[in-house]
């Protein structure tokens, strides 16, 4: 992607807020998503980040990869910390202690930090209506601690705590529908996105930035290390996740669902599953089961969405 084509989303496309020198694995789409997304948020932003890959790869003392004000407190509380930040700058502006201007407060956490341990803090922050954007970078497991399953790990996937074996098929539960949970809070803006579709992603960040009140963006972030795929395949698998209907791109604006990219006709899920080491053990039966699920969920999403 040429930086020039980012001009619709940012007036300073060349500027990197997530700088090089970080320690993310080769081909990591999580850091790619943040690198691009932050260009849209721009300099007047404050980040509260949860413990996880993105925190660990970016801030070993005394160095930092962030050219924005950035804070890490713990694993489960990015949304609560962001609540404090938003309230803090708000009252300081009200009292005239800092100049009044729009500052984007952004909370960032992984799928574990969002759909598992951080769900309560996130729910509280959304319910209270803080003016902030929450970005979940979903790589479908606890990667930072060594690829353990989360509630966002897809059915059938092998992780170190959902290993396939004589009695196990890998992850035995279905992926938690976190965007739907966010949308159930009746917040003004919810979206799914994937950096394999950068313009769709950036347009959504732009909307989230402009939203008054909570915005939630769930970003499928391919992790070559945890998914056991070659490091040059992250973009490819992100595309396949969307084209198979496994990870649909949509947004929910004031309760209205809209599919932002239609992948129809859907590619068979086997195209996505084959080639990923984490699904290597799956039988045809299990793949068929996944296909049924995807067909059902896609139909369900279409039923209450507008198409682009």
């Amino acid at each position, binding site marked *: 992607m040429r930086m020039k084509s980012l001009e619709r989303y940012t007036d300073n496309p060349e500027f990197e807020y997530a700088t090089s020198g970080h320690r993310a694995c080769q081909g990591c789409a999580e850091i790619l998503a943040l690198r691009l997304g932050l260009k849209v948020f721009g300099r007047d932003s404050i980040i509260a980040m949860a413990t996880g890959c993105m925190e660990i790869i970016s801030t070993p003392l005394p160095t930092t990869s962030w050219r924005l004000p950035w804070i890490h407190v713990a694993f489960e509380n990015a949304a609560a910390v962001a609540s*404090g930040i938003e309230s*803090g700058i708000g009252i300081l502006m009200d009292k005239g202690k800092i100049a009044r201007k729009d500052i984007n407060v952004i909370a960032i956490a992984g799928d574990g930090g969002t759909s598992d341990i951080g769900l309560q803090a996130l729910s509280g922050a959304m319910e209270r209506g803080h003016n902030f954007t929450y970005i979940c970078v979903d790589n479908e497991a606890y990667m930072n601690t060594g690829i353990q399953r989360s509630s966002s790990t897809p059915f059938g996937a092998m992780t170190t705590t959902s290993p396939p074996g004589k009695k196990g098929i890998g992850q035995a539960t279905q992926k938690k529908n976190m965007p739907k949970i966010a949308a159930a809070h009746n917040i003004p803006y919810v979206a799914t996105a994937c950096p394999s579709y950068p313009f769709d992603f950036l347009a959504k960040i732009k909307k989230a930035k402009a939203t008054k009140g909570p915005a939630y963006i769930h970003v499928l972030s391919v992790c070559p290390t945890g998914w056991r795929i070659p490091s040059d395949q992250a973009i490819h698998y992100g595309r396949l996740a969307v084209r198979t209907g496994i990870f649909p791109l949509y947004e929910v604006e004031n309760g209205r669902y809209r599919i932002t990219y239609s992948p129809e006709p859907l590619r068979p899920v086997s195209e996505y599953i084959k080639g990923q080491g984490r699904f290597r053990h799956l039988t045809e039966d299990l793949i068929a089961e996944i296909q049924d699920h995807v067909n059902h969920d896609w139909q369900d999403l279409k039923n209450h969405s507008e198409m682009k």
Partner: protein
Amino acid sequence: MSTKKGMEVSIAASVAAKLARVEAIAAYPITPQTHIVEHLAELVANGELEAAYINVESEHSAMSACVGASATGARTFTSTSSQGMELMHEILFIASGMRLPIVMAAVNRALSSPLSIWGDHSDIMAARDTGWVMVFCENGQEVVDSIIMAFKIAEDRRVLLPMMVNLDGFSLSHVIEPIEFPSQEDVDRFLPPYNPLYTLHPDKPVTMGAYAMPELYTEAKYSQEMAIRNSKSVVKEVMDQFSREFGRTYNLVETYNTEKADTIFMALGSINENIKTAIDSLKEEGKELGLVSLRLFRPFPDAELFEVLKNKKKIVVLERVMPGGAMNGPLFNEMASLVVSNGLNVQLENFIFGLGGRDVEPEELMEVYEQVVSSGKLSHADNKNYGVIGVRS
């Protein structure tokens, strides 16, 4: 002009926070802290206090939101008790490690199980080494004054640490006492606005909460440890300034009848008022007992304690927490450390009392005194190293 009013201590604590012009409050209700946060909500709702009040969904988020707010440079206050303090335990360490001058009114209460809403020191003793500066209060006036002083201490550039003001649940938090409130002008003069060193702001981006590899972690913790150790002189300085400006004197270590007595009771919090009553009654019988109470608990005022205790014969440490399998209660263990490192020749005794709101009458304290003075090192039932006042086995 100060004003004197009869007021519930909890309400007084929130008035003190208002006098300190707190800017951000994040708290979650738990008995016996509730009246503090309720009254603060009311002050904000009435427009009497201009502050952000964050109605978080848990104490974990309360402390997390306090960290976020304090990191922006807002003067931040919270209050909790018991289970709530346990739930925020993880973030207590982070607040001190990040050097954020949050002030908390810790309304001390027992920990479950069995569940008990009543007062003791189980909560704060589980949090005692979280890196917060900590003071204990004996009455409502001290609570008010300590909250005002706490911001000045915590925000001092030589300190920059969070601070807890401890008050006993119910036996202090819920009693009505005559309290003198300093005027807003006087408080403003004493406590200028918070002037933070670093804040989260786009004009000057900083990274907060980075992680440390083995080659830096020790140094990071060491510098934090030096900060809390050195905070003692700032606490002293602030207490002295407070005495000069408001006429009420505070010391790191408070003493009562210690000159004459060879036997000294040591305790934290509101029990000290009962101990003083016991001391007065004993005096009428011609017996001398002294009291040393720690106003400052963290950092531990070892040198000051040594000064008062160096020539004493018997020291009885009274504490409101079960040792949990340790040889003795936590305060005793620190006193034992003080005795050993200073080579004091003293008989040290340990009593547990007042758990889960159990009252201890001055008469029972007088009995403890009689036991201690009439013998050498005490032995206790079940081969324990400590006695448990009033326990039915």
